[in-house]
């Protein structure tokens, strides 16, 4: 019993230790302290240099603008769609493709979207020259536009599936079906009714994922490099550039920039929180006004179209990359390559086999650790929750911290920590680095179903003489096997997609499919990018496929669970 009681504390220490130490390791150079480069005493020079940088205003505006817009649009799309289509066949169909969509790594999705919307991309090719008259691609600034519109589109396409998954997980707990029945009985249309009675119950549960999306969108690096403007780039990209500057003294300004990025994210969250408050007040008046709403049909269609656009862009982009991976020479405006060749797969696949194995190993170990810790935390919360529930739940909230703090703000510091602690760069350290990010996502996707489990099952089992562990292993876990496996697949997907943690903590010695993909993406060869992106996506999809297939095997002698 004792280890279980300690589980939340141990997990918190494992998660928060690295993050806190990493932040400290970034804060010190920002304040001028970095003995290896001669920074011995505190100074404000790094921040002075940062504020003297002429691009700062626009970089900050871009970070705030793209982050807030992408988050708001993603949330609106998800809410509109779920409101309009909850319980429908369309919704169930979409649920099935959610996991594969989630599994596409951000960088791969962004590269695919570039090939769709660029002036030389698939859409332009399909329409040229017969409709557009273009023999050469037009000189249009669609990708990397200075306002970051392409970047926002790319982020929305990837964040919609994530928020959708989180919303769907929250619906049962919010008692959505019964609430909707009441609203419909009172004459509300589906969208208006959902917004008035279900959304207020759902939003508190998806607030953390929304904040995670906000923090991620504001400080994303790989997507911003591919789709975002570069003259100047958003702040996070500029921070990474300063870190990569051959002039080592730029590390000071980079650290100051990372701290500013952290401040921006915190500020944006505060702003979002304020908006929640204001909109919540307004929403209450709106709900109480009793209006039944108009334009239901338009809103439903808008929700459907935007969701299909987001999902379609990712799928079509991936199909484009798949075509490139087997393309011979492919000239504009031909919609298809001149020839098909497997030589890129033949040359790349053997070289990537070792990397693939390593990626699987790291992902498996990190996910298994995360799973054990999360199950222990949730079970501890369930068993001892009544005694000190507030403390445990409050502590669990902190586990989301790695998702809310920008990666550039604490990973460089975390790297130094691993070195100071004398840890040799290797897979073990990388697993710890991944765990910091895998664990919150596993918790995110498992907490709601775990907490929503009907505890009366346990009461029945207990009256039949089962102890707490017997209940856990024989009743609770089998009943919750589907969400547990989904959480496992999500955790594995998160691990596979990690770039900066693998690179910085692994000292470059630990190569994963993602570090390969980003390194190759810097060369811009779409064929090779196609090969690595497909391998990456295929691996994660395999995880999700197993998560879907395994419950059927596990439940073969538990017929009653099959529909659950």
């Amino acid at each position, binding site marked *: 019993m004792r280890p279980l009681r300690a589980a939340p504390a141990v997990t918190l220490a494992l998660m928060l230790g690295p993050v806190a130490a990493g932040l400290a390791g970034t804060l010190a150079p920002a304040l001028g302290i970095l*003995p290896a480069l001669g920074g011995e005493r505190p100074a404000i020079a790094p921040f002075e240099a940062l504020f003297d940088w002429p691009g700062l205003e626009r970089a900050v505006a871009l970070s705030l603008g793209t982050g807030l817009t992408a988050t708001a649009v993603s949330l609106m799309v998800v809410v509109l769609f779920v409101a309009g289509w909850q319980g429908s066949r369309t919704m169930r169909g979409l649920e099935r493709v959610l996991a594969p969509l989630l599994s596409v790594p951000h960088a791969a999705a962004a590269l695919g979207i570039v090939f769709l919307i660029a002036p030389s991309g698939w859409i332009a090719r399909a329409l040229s020259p017969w409709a557009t008259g273009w023999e050469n691609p037009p000189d249009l600034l669609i990708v990397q536009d200075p306002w970051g519109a392409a970047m926002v589109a790319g982020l929305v396409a990837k964040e919609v599936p994530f928020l959708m998954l989180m919303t769907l997980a929250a619906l049962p707990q919010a008692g959505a079906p019964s609430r909707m029945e009441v609203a419909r009985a009172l004459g509300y249309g589906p969208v208006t009714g959902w917004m008035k009675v279900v959304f207020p119950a759902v939003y508190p549960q998806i607030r953390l994922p929304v904040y995670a999306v906000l923090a991620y969108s504001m400080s994303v690096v790989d997507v911003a490099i591919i789709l975002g403007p570069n003259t100047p780039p958003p702040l996070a990209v500029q921070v990474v550039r300063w870190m990569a500057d051959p002039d*080592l003294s730029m590390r000071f300004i980079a650290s100051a920039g990372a701290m500013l990025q952290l401040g921006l994210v915190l500020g944006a969250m505060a702003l979002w929180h304020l908006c929640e408050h204001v909109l919540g007040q307004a929403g209450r008046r709106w709900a109480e006004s009793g209006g039944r709403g108009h334009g239901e049909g338009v809103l439903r269609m808008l929700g459907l179209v935007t969701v299909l656009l987001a999902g379609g862009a990712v799928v079509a982009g991936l199909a484009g990359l798949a075509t490139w991976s087997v393309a011979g020479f492919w000239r504009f405006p031909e919609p298809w390559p001149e020839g098909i060749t497997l030589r890129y797969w033949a040359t790349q696949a053997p070289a990537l086999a070792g990397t693939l194995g390593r990626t699987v190993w790291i992902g498996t170990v990190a996910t298994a650790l995360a799973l054990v810790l999360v199950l222990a935390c949730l079970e501890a919360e369930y068993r001892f929750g009544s005694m000190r529930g507030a403390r445990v739940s409050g502590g669990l909230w902190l586990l989301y911290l790695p998702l809310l703090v920008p990666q550039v703000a604490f990973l460089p510091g975390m790297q130094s920590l691993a*070195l100071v602690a004398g840890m040799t760069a290797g897979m073990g350290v990388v697993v710890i680095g991944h765990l910091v990010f895998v664990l919150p996502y596993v918790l995110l996707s498992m907490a709601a179903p775990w907490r929503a489990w009907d505890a009366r099952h346990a009461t029945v089992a207990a009256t039949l003489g089962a102890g707490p562990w017997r209940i856990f292993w024989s009743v609770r876990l089998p009943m919750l096997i589907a969400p547990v496996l989904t959480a496992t697949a999500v955790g594995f997907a998160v691990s596979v997609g990690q770039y900066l943690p693998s690179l910085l903590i692994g*000292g470059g010695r630990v190569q994963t499919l993602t570090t390969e993909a980003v390194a190759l993406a810097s*060369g811009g060869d779409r*064929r090779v990018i196609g090969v690595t992106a497909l391998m990456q996506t295929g691996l994660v999809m395999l995880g999700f496929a197993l998560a879907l297939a395994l419950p059927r095997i596990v439940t073969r002698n538990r017929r009653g669970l099959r529909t659950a």
Partner: protein
Amino acid sequence: MTILARLYALAALVTTPAWADPDPADWQGVLEQARGQTVYWNAWGGATATNAFIRWAGDRVEARNGVRVVHVKLSDTADAVSRVLAERAAGKHSGGAVDLIWINGANFAAMKEAGLLFGPWAEALPNWRLVDVAGKPALRSDFTVPTEGLEAPWAMAQVVFYHDTARLPDPPQSMPALLDWAKGNPGRFTYPQPPDFLGSTFLKQALYELVSDPSLLQGPIEAVDYAEVSAPLWAFLDELTPHLWRQGRAYPQSGPRQIQLMADGEIDLAISFSPGEASTAIANGQLPDTVRTFVLEGGTIGNASFVAIPYNATAKAGAMVLADFLLSPEAQARAQDPDVLGYGTVLAMDKLAQVDRARFAELDMGIATLSPEELGPALPEPHPSWMRQLEADWMARYGLGD
């Protein structure tokens, strides 16, 4: 000898095996120490051709010398520099993660200045005697910074431009001609965004041609009136930028991205630092076979690629063995083959044995590769301070939007 001194000597004996750096003068010792080591070679991983070459070199060195090579694929060389720096900051003065870095120019200057490099060792390598030291001054002067044996060269590079003859049969041969052509054909030329090294090289190449006295570029910028010397370059770029691809509001983020842009028909002319790059890309099906290469009338900048060993590297002996193999006629001839890499050799043909000379003579240089005569003499790289200042100024002028 006092007891204390004896103790010292004893302590030295005991600790030496763990701390001793290999002595490059004792090559047999280096070879013995290297056997069984794993060398983590940190090299840019953005080009499939170089990745394949590095894999080949690793296989050969493992077969010949029992040294295993792992290519750590970087998206930026500075990542490796950061790593070494982070290790020193953490007091990890041995057993570092980086054994060998593909490096030159500003990264080398920064590491040398910060004392992050092991050596000297390069000029003690057995194959160093084959190196064309006299004919290629860039091999001992990396962006004017003396290498002092802290890095070993392995490839020569020279700026060339490539164009698709199907769309642009007569490319402009000088910077002023380029400007005129761009005005008549807006949106068909661009260069990688500085501080990408190739983009910065375009700036230096343009400066070379536009400056009144190119010899000024060989010294640090502090020695000259920088504003005056660089003024013609900014005037040129102010005129050129609105006629660039995307009106200069976006730039490709790396050199190889230009290959994709040309294959997509978005641009007609691109800069490259590898005379064989276009031929290699044609062989790979990445460019149409109508692409050709040329150099500007006044000559183009050339430099060398090096490998360096960090001061805290784990497998220094293995790294030296690998560096020596890269200088071998076998590896050099393979690197020069346009079907493989298309990089220029650093060796002097007259120092090679007959059989090794034949390896180079047999090479089919590819349809888009210029002969050494056509390439002409390479202009030396300006002092690193120029690159740093040009990048900063470019950023302030064109990198921040309207």
